């Protein structure tokens, strides 16, 4: 599943219930924190105050008002039970059953796809009621029959949920759904049907909710809108119980103020977006703090060409830009101080590297002879002023992006300078996020745009953005193939297979093959992975780290505050 990164990373959170289950699953390796083991050596008690850049609009996670990644990281992954988590497996990431299940679900692929989950008999809600198959059925029913649902994908493929055995829900699909491990979890999580059935779910959660199926829960009045959200330990959690007395997320939307709050000790943990201010502050050093930054994320920032509009409807022009832009210099300028210097050479974010050809775009390096060759063969000539022209028309292009994002402003300026020097004058236009993603891109009213695609589940799902069937058309302009990539012969079959095959090796292979096909005509030019940045005070003890999908709080039940 893919999201567009608006002003922030829109990642999905998959619940942190794997903390214990992961003991028999993945984890470990590299710098990412492990959620394994106990927290017996961690101090008990204390309050962790985290500076949080965004407040969720609502905590009805399946509602149309949801979608804030900071909301998911803060409250969804910590309170909602789910079937699978995304965990580190060696050097890669992948799904692992959470402690809601006793182990892997049973998958039957024919004649219909049928998934049978086995619920951990210890799994229960914060009121002591068991988590049952009926909770699965309730979630499915709410999603497919609800009126204000954020995303029904995958759930509409389901034909039935059999809850006759409370401990083993059986989910039968009408049509195959490859990313089935993101269901009954993913960006949603299970709801307690015994508390919500027959009620207005959206209204019941309007001011937060006090039930939980995770290590943390919201106390009554725990969400003070606009100010802070508080979590306390769930006394009935069946996994490792939190050591901290409380976590308080303070909403600080100004990045500079957020850093000052961290420096002053008003907050002990921040998870800022990788803006130039943040990078500069980290580079300068912050006394008494630990930091973690990684390019291992579900984000991919790129130049997205409108393949259906001049001049980028000509693949040679798109390729020429690939040989003009020094992407390594751009990435180094943006994130060099964080150790991130290499550009992305695949259209897939780094965490799905097993599905990617990491060198698909590697040929695109500054090469003026290639540029001349491509442009000349496309009928362009360079004028005495050094600007390319065709049929008496000088080359012009407009790069569009979101307003108010300093990192993107800096990126645009560097790109503009590099292109100008190569004879490609380019103007910059910044639009409000809602306008760009709500109207301009779907309607195709752009030439080239700079934004980030963000994975919201552990599946590449490139068909969403590159299959010809998903090109938006009037009057509804539905579909996310805003670049108007139209290659039913080569691209569509490969990417369709990724979404529909239930054989993981087939999915990986097809997606890997699609990468060089897309690169051959440079449908988009990948730039950087938007590194995740996490800073925390030295008093915070435990395996603090980042999970690129579930966020930094995924294992906060293992943390403590030192004296």
């Amino acid at each position, binding site marked *: 599943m*893919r999201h567009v990164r608006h002003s922030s990373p829109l990642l999905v959170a998959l619940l942190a219930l794997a903390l214990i289950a992961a003991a028999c699953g993945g984890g470990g390796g590299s710098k990412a924190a492990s959620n394994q083991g106990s927290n017996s050596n961690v101090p008990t008690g204390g309050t962790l105050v985290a500076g949080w850049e965004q407040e969720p609009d609502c905590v009805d996670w399946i509602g*149309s008002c949801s979608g804030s990644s900071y909301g998911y990281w803060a409250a969804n992954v910590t309170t909602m039970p789910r079937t699978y988590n995304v965990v580190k497996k060696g050097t890669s990431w992948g799904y692992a059953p959470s402690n809601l299940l006793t182990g892997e679900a049973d998958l039957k692929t024919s004649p219909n796809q049928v998934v049978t989950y086995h619920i951990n008999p210890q799994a229960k809600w914060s009121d002591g009621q068991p988590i049952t198959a009926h909770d699965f059925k309730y979630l499915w029913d709410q999603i497919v029959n609800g009126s204000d649902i954020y995303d029904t994908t995958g759930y509409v493929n389901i034909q039935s949920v059999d809850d006759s055995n409370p401990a083993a829900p059986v989910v039968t699909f009408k049509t195959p759904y490859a990313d089935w491990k993101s269901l009954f979890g993913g960006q949603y999580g299970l709801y307690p049907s015994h508390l919500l059935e027959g009620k207005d779910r959206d209204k019941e959660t309007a001011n937060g909710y006090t039930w939980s199926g995770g290590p943390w829960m919201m106390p009554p009045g725990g969400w003070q*809108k606009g*100010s802070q959200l508080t979590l306390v330990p769930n006394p009935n959690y069946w996994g490792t119980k939190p050591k901290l007395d409380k976590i308080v997320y303070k909403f600080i939307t100004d990045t500079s103020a957020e850093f000052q*709050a961290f420096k002053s000790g008003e907050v002990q943990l921040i998870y800022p977006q990788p803006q130039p201010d943040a990078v500069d502050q980290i580079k300068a050093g912050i006394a008494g703090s630990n930091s973690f930054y990684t390019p291992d994320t579900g984000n991919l920032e790129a130049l997205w060409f409108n393949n259906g509009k001049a001049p980028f409807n000509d693949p040679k022009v798109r390729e020429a830009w690939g040989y003009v832009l020094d992407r390594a210099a751009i990435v180094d300028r943006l994130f060099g101080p964080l150790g991130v210097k290499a550009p992305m050479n695949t259209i897939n974010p780094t965490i799905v590297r097993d599905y990617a050809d990491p060198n698909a775009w590697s040929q695109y390096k500054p090469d003026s002879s290639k540029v001349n060759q491509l442009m000349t063969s496309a009928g362009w000539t360079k004028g005495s002023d050094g600007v390319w022209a065709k049929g008496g028309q000088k080359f012009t292009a407009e790069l569009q992006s979101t307003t108010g994002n300093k990192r993107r402003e800096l990126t645009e300026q560097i790109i503009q300078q590099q292109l100008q020097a190569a004879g490609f004058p380019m103007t910059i236009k910044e639009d409000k996020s*809602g306008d760009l993603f709500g109207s301009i891109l779907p309607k195709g009213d752009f030439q080239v745009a700079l934004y980030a695609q963000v994975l919201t589940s552990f599946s590449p799902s490139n068909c969403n953005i590159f299959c010809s069937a998903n090109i938006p058309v009037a009057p509804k302009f539905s579909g996310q193939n805003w670049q108007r990539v139209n290659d039913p012969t080569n691209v569509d079959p490969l990417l369709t297979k990724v979404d529909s095959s239930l054989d993981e090796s087939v999915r990986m292979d097809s997606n890997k093959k699609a990468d060089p096909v897309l690169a051959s005509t440079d449908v988009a030019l990948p730039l950087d992975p938007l590194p995740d940045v996490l800073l925390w005070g030295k008093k915070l003890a435990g395996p603090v780290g980042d999970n690129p999908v579930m966020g930094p709080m995924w294992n906060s039940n293992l943390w403590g505050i030192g004296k």
Partner: protein
Amino acid sequence: MPSYVARRLAYSIPVLLIASFLLFAFVRATFDPTARLRASRDPHAVERERVRLGLDKPIVVQYKDWLVKFGQGDWGESSRTHDRVAPMIRSALWNTIQLILWGILVSAVFAIGIGIYSAVRQYSLADYVLTSASFIGLAMPPFWFGLIAIAFLAVGPKNWFHLSNPPLFFVGLHSVQSTGILDYPRHLVLPVLTLTVQIVASWSRYERASMLDAINADYVRAAKAKGLSPRQVIFKHAFRNALIPLVTVMALDVGLLFGGLVVTEQIFSVPGMGKLFIDSLVQGDANVLVVWTVVTAAFVIIFNLLADVAYGALDPRIRLA
């Protein structure tokens, strides 16, 4: 007087109606509240939400629906958060009022004091210093001043003196765990300082100018000639008359402040009216924005009215009709 007030309030109704309709139409035309659903893989998500929010109806019908409900006391629901608009506005207003109340109090005391002192000591060294400071204050962007204030009055002292907590807080209006009776004032100092620096600079210039006019007026010369003490001359005769222009400016500024603390609220994480406006504007939440406009406009109208009424109190020669 009552008929004057009633008439002024009646005039304001069409103004509010026109303003609310224009804003409603503007927001609907320029912002798409379903934009965030474009990120959903679900191709029907946008259409479902458009129908749910009534966006498939003509704009006039949408506005009429909203207005009828508003007239019945139903201020509607935020398309962004699904919360009722009335409690959202109430909560934001209370936070903003706290800042305004303290800000106005501090500003008035300092601006009037500086204005009087500068006028009485015209062209003295102190007058030059205060005048220069006023111009610096006027030129100081609040977002910059706020961050500088945080760095030098909160974070800096904490590090310089190795304190366990900064002397002044700057996240919200209360600490997670109260630090005692001074917790609230310690949160208020920096946002109020940021809010007041431009206001004090501006108002003190008005006060100085009107005090100079008053000091050089014939009736003040007459009072001096009668042998009254300088204190009596200034505070009994000049000051009261010099207040009238300042009261006008103060009333207008206070009314506008109810919707205009965007930067201060953003930097100090205060969930007030300014922050509510920005959050709603960014996501095209017309239901909140229109009520926000009506409430803000109502405050502007009320404070204009208060200014007119205050004239009468300050100068018995002025009668409202």
